[in-house]
């Protein structure tokens, strides 16, 4: 199939056009169109999965066309083992989220149009290999996200301390934070453009494959100080998206105020873009800067802080959704730690963790949505004994909780173990102490998940909720596929691991081979 990546990226845009022609009152038609287009997208993703050759680290399904020749901007798409799991995750969660959004009643057309635009943007980020194109997709996601949180999120309200909170506040906070990060990425991108030459034509280039080849670097990129600055600029852009402490404060607001499906996308896909960017751009393009000891240890220490700080914050939350949001910060810390050791084990663990956290946290947010739709609040202490009343819901929740805390047999156990072991066994840097301290996070995580489960589901049934209806078929339809994936990849992770390992091992080798100058510049 030719141009499969263009199809998978732009199918949602076709969906938007279709939706625009539907009369406003045909809400179900709009929903069905959205489901059909994301469904087709999922089919294409599965096709890509089946036809992807995981024995090579080369770029596959590539498409390259001239776009703006005078600026050497190409429309260049292609995927390797790093992008494939992200493409699968995006297609899978987008499809699921359409059904999780079935209950949206306010301006249905607008909602699904925005959602599909977001979907196209995410897919484009994972498929593009031209930096300019990557940046366009990266930014295109901001606007739909702003509207999705602002219009369909919780309404504006004034807190007890006089602060205005709610969807509109969270939306602008998300927008400002992310734009702040991406402007630094834009500067880094332009510095790359003007200082890297295309080996064939000798002109400037945005082609990521050329940017990764150190032999093409010239001009100010020969200067190690500049390389460090550019690495820092890129890191800022990606760290805000992950989010890395101390840039995380947008996340609890955005996740909590967003509608359920948008929270799922935010936690499930958007956060991964930060770490994906690091692995796709920062590491291979500036491997020596990555290996500068302050940056390398800095990355591991920030990972550790994310793990511990996120877990401790999660434990302190009274609001279930906020707890899940902070648990995301904690789990993304594991990705950072796994990456920082530059071992094959850790790197594979990190990318698997990106995928597994995507599925696990999606389940959690969907389940939060289920209970919120019924009880209209999310206070953990406001429930109790729900297992009696809603046994299937409780079973689902326990599966998601156990996946979150990394129970052996469930998917995230494998990726977390790989990440920690990889970081601990690093030969490049001595990360043993940092890893050991980080593992405390696992205990805290187990603590808050189990404690929450106990408060919500065990003990006396709160009489207020004696009539709470059990989880319904549509909701189960969104949860069961994810649950199956969580269990299957927990028992048999080979399909995922095989997919990514060739590309990632190559990435590890490239970064490891780079020499980090120690006698230059800022040292």
């Amino acid at each position, binding site marked *: 199939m030719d141009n499969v990546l263009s199809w998978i990226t732009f199918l949602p845009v076709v969906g938007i056009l279709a939706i625009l022609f539907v009369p406003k009152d045909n809400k179900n038609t709009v929903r069905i169109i959205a489901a059909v287009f994301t469904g087709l997208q999922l089919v294409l993703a599965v096709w890509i999965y089946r036809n992807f050759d995981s024995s090579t680290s080369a770029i596959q399904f590539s498409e390259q066309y001239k776009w703006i020749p*005078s600026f050497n901007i190409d429309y260049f798409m292609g995927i390797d083992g790093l992008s494939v799991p992200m493409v699968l995750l995006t297609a899978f969660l987008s499809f699921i989220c359409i059904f999780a959004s079935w209950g949206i009643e306010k301006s249905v057309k607008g909602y699904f149009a925005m959602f599909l635009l977001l979907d196209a943007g995410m897919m484009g980020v994972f498929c593009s290999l031209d930096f300019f194109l990557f940046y366009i997709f990266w930014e295109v996601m901001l606007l739909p996200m702003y509207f999705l949180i602002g219009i369909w999120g919780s309404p504006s309200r004034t807190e007890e301390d006089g602060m205005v909170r709610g969807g509109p506040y969270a939306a602008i906070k998300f927008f400002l934070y992310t734009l702040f990060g991406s402007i630094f990425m834009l500067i880094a991108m332009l510095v790359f453009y003007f200082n890297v030459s295309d080996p064939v034509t000798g002109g400037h280039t945005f082609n990521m494959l050329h940017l990764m080849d150190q032999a093409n670097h010239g001009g100010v990129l020969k200067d190690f100080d500049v390389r460090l600055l550019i690495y820092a600029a890129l890191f800022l852009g990606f760290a805000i998206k992950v989010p890395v402490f101390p840039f995380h404060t947008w996340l609890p607001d955005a996740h909590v105020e967003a509608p359920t499906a948008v929270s799922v996308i935010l936690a499930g896909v958007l956060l991964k873009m930060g770490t994906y960017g690091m692995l796709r751009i920062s590491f291979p393009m500036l491997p020596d800067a990555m290996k500068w000891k302050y940056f390398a240890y800095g990355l591991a220490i920030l990972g550790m802080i994310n793990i511990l700080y996120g877990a401790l914050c999660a434990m302190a939350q009274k609001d279930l959704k906020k707890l899940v949001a902070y648990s995301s910060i904690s789990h993304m810390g594991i990705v950072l730690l796994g990456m920082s050791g530059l071992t094959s084990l850790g790197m594979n663990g990190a990318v698997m963790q990106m995928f597994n956290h995507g599925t696990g946290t999606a389940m959690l947010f969907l389940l939060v949505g289920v209970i919120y739709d019924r009880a209209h609040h999310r206070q953990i202490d406001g429930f109790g004994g729900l297992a009696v009343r809603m046994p299937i819901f409780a079973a689902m929740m326990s599966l998601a909780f156990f996946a979150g805390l990394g129970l052996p047999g469930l998917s995230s156990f494998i990726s977390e173990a790989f990440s920690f072991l990889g970081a601990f066994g690093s030969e490049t840097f001595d990360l043993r102490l940092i890893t050991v301290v980080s593992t405390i996070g696992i205990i805290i995580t187990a603590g808050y998940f189990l404690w929450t489960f106990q408060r919500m589901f065990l003990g006396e049934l709160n009489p207020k909720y004696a009539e709470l209806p059990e989880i319904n078929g549509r909701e189960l339809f969104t949860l069961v596929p994810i649950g199956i994936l969580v269990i299957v990849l927990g028992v048999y992770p080979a399909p995922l691991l095989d997919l990514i390992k060739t590309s990632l091992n190559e990435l590890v080798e490239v970064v490891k081979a780079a020499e980090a100058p120690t006698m230059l510049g800022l040292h």
Partner: protein
Amino acid sequence: MDYSSIIKDNLISLNYFLPELLLTGLIIVLVIADLFLKDERSPWLSFVALAGCVVVLLSVIAQFDLGSRSLFQHMLVVDPFSVFFKLLFLASAIAVIFLSIASVELAGRPVGEYFTLLIALTLGLFLMASSTNLVTILLSIEFVSIVSFVLATYLKTRRRSSEAGLKYAIYGAFSSGLMLYGLSLLYGLTGTLNLYEIGDVLASRDSNGMALTLSTILILAGFGYKIASVPFHFWSPDVYEGAPTPITAFLSIGPKAAGFAVLIRFFNVALAGEPANGASQWSALPELDWPMILAVVSAITMTLGNLVAIVQTNIKRLLAYSSIAHAGYALMGVVVLSQDGIYATMFYLAVYYLMNLGAFLVVIVFQDLLGSEKIADFKGLAWRAPVPAIAMAVFLVSLTGLPPTAGFIGKFYLFAAVIKAGPAFYWLAVVGLLNSVVALYYYARILKTMFFDKAAEENSISVSPYYVTLLALLAAPTIILGVYWAPLQKLATNSVEFLRAL
């Protein structure tokens, strides 16, 4: 040169002066036609003005093939650079005529003088973009200023309009005075009024750096007033608020672009050395570091414009401050002294024309529908009048500089030019980009008011098909140029050429 050859040169020059002559003719036609019209508010005059503009447009397009040529004893010039700006001015004039036709604000007022003045203003802008002599520069700037004063006070029964005109005139007189003094200093230093000769004189011998810097800063007062850069921006919020909105839209684009045209020509012809070995980068005079002066002005202008815009409650004032900030962005391209920079500035001005005009069009629509310019009154408008609200979202996103809109491409070229110039100006790129984040805050606040807040009334408002068409005509290219901008880029690239030496 004897008299006969001077006369001959002037006669030949007339051939290249056709668009300006046509505009002059159009002015006369409008004045006379106004006498014969019984009904003061007849739409016929606007049609005459439009038809005239289209004829002028054709004659301007024909000028692209002429190359570069100095006219009237080096008073004026016709070159691709000036032709590009003339196109921009005509496009603005045509758009403003369309805005004025349906404007409720202008309803019931005599239109004869209005369109006459509008065309006269366009003629002034044409002359500004092609002046190559200190005298023509001063005269054309004054021409534009005086016509603008009158247009700003066109709603003379409205107090704010009169106030706007008065402030405009006082600031204008003040900055013209400063500029005149600067020009006289420059004449004293070089002994000539011709920009090319000034350039040669300054390049060939060491001048007093102190006097040259003083004269440049004073001259910058005149240009700064036209493009509304700090510290000569004080007039613009009041004038933007008080003037009839179609005129505000015109003032925010036409005179600003003309200011850039004359600024770029003046600095690059008179105050920059020839490019070494044919490179696309010029060098400033060693005794006068004007790129740094402009860089500082640019940084302060965009920062101040954006920060003050945050606290505005009136949409026209907000757009005034945002347009100050945009002048700061566009200046970045002039700072780097390169072909790429000038090209980026020109590209940006063309894009700015689309998105700013679009934003003002939405303001006019809302003004007609609600009778209010207060942002607070836009609450929930997206649910009552979705078409203008969505169009506004497109224009504001473009003004912020986010893809996939033309505004992003414009900013991208500006920042690319700055980064290309090397690490010396990285700081300016950082300041510019941080300003985009600040700008997002107040642009997004308008979106928040329109889309997120609850409307006071629920009933939907219908927008006339005329406005819907105009909105679509401006919004569509704003998005299309964000995805495929090669045609505009080609036009700007071909127009970067200006006559650099006699």
